[in-house]
């Protein structure tokens, strides 16, 4: 099984530690993982802003980079969701279809494809899970609070197996953090208010570290936490799953 590591643009540029943790974790799990050169972006910021027509070039680059792999795995539910959901704007060649079908968010890949939930990690902290919307409602990484389906959560299955980790429950289990890509700047007031409210929920429930499978949400929350000097850290779930004492 040949796996292509997809590192979203903002993680590559701003959060290399998340990419490193993802790579190391996959290697630890015995995955034959490659990082194709020349990756740019899935095109989501353009699509969500109404300019999906201008994103065709980046979609093509993506497919070109990953067409030879059995699976494409990335540490971002949102970007993977975009590939699966919105790459319908380019011609659906067998290569495009293959890439879209085989693109996986990291946690889902580990649980569903590798069939593992206990990764031998250890992280003795009180952790709050931010269930990012595109991973949750888009990729169905877990059950949603609005739907009456049997409860499950891919990320919780992984976190509950981390030694010493205490998963704190939140008052609002899956409310949006307000990042929303360009929404975060064009609807700045609401975006910030939503983020603050999410953070307060974690603080009220004694969380020390906020984690999630989408670092864009975490970047937004981290920006607020750092500005307001709040006693919280954010870490991508890959960093937690890759940590040991």
């Amino acid at each position, binding site marked *: 099984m040949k796996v292509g590591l997809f590192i979203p*643009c903002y*993680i*590559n*540029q*701003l959060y*290399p*530690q998340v990419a*490193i943790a993802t*790579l190391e974790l996959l290697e630890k799990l015995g995955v034959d993982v*490659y*990082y194709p*050169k*020349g*990756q*740019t*972006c899935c095109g989501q910021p*353009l*699509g*969500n*802003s*109404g*300019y999906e*027509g*201008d*994103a*065709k*070039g*980046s979609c*093509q*680059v993506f497919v070109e980079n990953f067409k030879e792999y059995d699976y494409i795995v990335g540490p971002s539910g949102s970007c993977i969701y975009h590939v699966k959901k*919105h790459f319908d704007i380019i011609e659906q060649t067998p290569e495009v279809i293959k890439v879209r079908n085989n693109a996986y968010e990291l946690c889902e890949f580990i649980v569903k494809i590798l069939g593992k939930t206990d990764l031998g990690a250890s992280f003795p902290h009180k952790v709050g899970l931010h269930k990012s*919307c*595109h991973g949750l*409602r888009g990729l169905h990484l877990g059950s949603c*609070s*609005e739907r*009456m389906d049997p409860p499950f959560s891919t990320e919780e299955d992984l976190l509950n197996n981390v030694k010493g980790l205490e998963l704190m429950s939140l008052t609002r289990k899956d409310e*949006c953090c307000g*990042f*929303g*890509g360009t*929404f*975060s*700047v*064009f*609807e*700045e*007031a*609401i*975006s*910030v*208010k*939503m*983020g603050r409210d999410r953070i307060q929920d974690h603080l009220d429930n004694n969380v020390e570290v906020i984690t999630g499978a989408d670092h864009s949400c975490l*970047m*937004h929350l*981290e920006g*607020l936490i*750092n*500005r307001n000097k709040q006693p919280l850290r954010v870490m991508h779930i890959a960093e937690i799953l890759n940590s040991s004492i």
Partner: protein
Amino acid sequence: MSHAEKATIFNKNEAKVNWHDKALWYVREKRDNAAHNVKEWEYLRDLASAIKANVLSDLDTYLVEFEANALKNGIKIHWASDAEEHNAIIGKILDDNNAEKVVKSKSMLTEECHLNPYLEAKGIEVVDTDLGEYIVQIAKETPSHIVLPAIHKTKEEVDELFQEHLGTKPSNGNPEYLTNEARKHLRGKFLKADVAITGVNFAIADTGGIVVCTNEGNADMGSHLANVHIASMGIEKIIPKEAHLGIFLRLLARSATGQPITTYSSHFNKPAEGKEMHIVIVDNGRTEQLSREDFRASLHCIRCGACMNTCPIYRRSGGHSYEATIPGPIGSILSPGKDLTKHSSLPFASTLCGSCSNVCPVKINIHEQLYKWRQIIVKDVKQPIVKKSILKIAGSVLAKPKLYDFAGKSARFMLKYTPRFMIYSKLNAWGKARELPEIKNENFDQWYKINRKK
């Protein structure tokens, strides 16, 4: 004003935002609890959605069937292609009956058609009898929510309003006292009304009857007392069979307020002896929306308001920020179909979190339609030049890996070495309340080149 500008103003009073958010979240939770008690909830949603899709695919046939059956029952049917015709039809019915006083129960369609100002200009007294609508009417406002029209007002604000308009005593916002006072006042209006106007929740093709759901019984009180009952309905209110009510009534009340059933689900099948009953069937842009394949399913809507209660943006921006008759997520996919330029900011008033689509009892893919409207709006409505240029340039940079590599490195260099006061300038909306991420010495590409040799 755009939704973002209005929402920014609403957010100046954080305590009020918190209160508004919590009040609506409470309704959302009530809905969750009520839905959890129905084992087949998701199945009911599938059924309701399929029935609505069937209705829309054969709407003309169902409407004609409905009309024929209603006529057989002695109901008078009127067809209105737009708001103007709707108002004129109602105006004529009132003239024919020498009516001077009208009581209305809740109808978002008459709001959409701006019926009240039309009738008032004719010298007719119109009283909204739904308590929430009555409150916004005397405050000279519009509903901020389709089920909870006065949800933007605290009970203390209602107290003041009633002191001014009903002469009530200060009560510190005592809901029981205020409701009783409103009831007493409205009772007089009911008794003197010449005509009662109601909305329609469901129009049943195979019986020609309509169903109106209220919690206050005001639709019944109005229509039983007045000699003339006029019901206004959009063409999409049709359901094929009476038996389908079992699906829709269960979904509607639970989705709207978390009740197992609305207090009154009133069936109107024919006029009472010696009285008149009229139904005005209104298009007003609906067939145009029906013709848009991507947006057709927006006409499934049964006006439960659940998408508003769950929407984290609606809860924190208030209904009036949408400047549309129907606010919130569903309004943001309906309104652009009516006036794309006026409502062009609405599809962007969303993070596309998808919660609206998940709560929707008739499974409208609201967040997907928001995404689709965005694609249309940037083409058809003039966009701010800076926003447009940035995104267009980004598109071409992201299509060229080498250019992207250079741009990424340059941006990180700039962010790392530019003085803070320049980065956190007025132009940086991100940085107003948030820090930017700390810039590391290398990106992942650089790290990988050094640390992995594959």
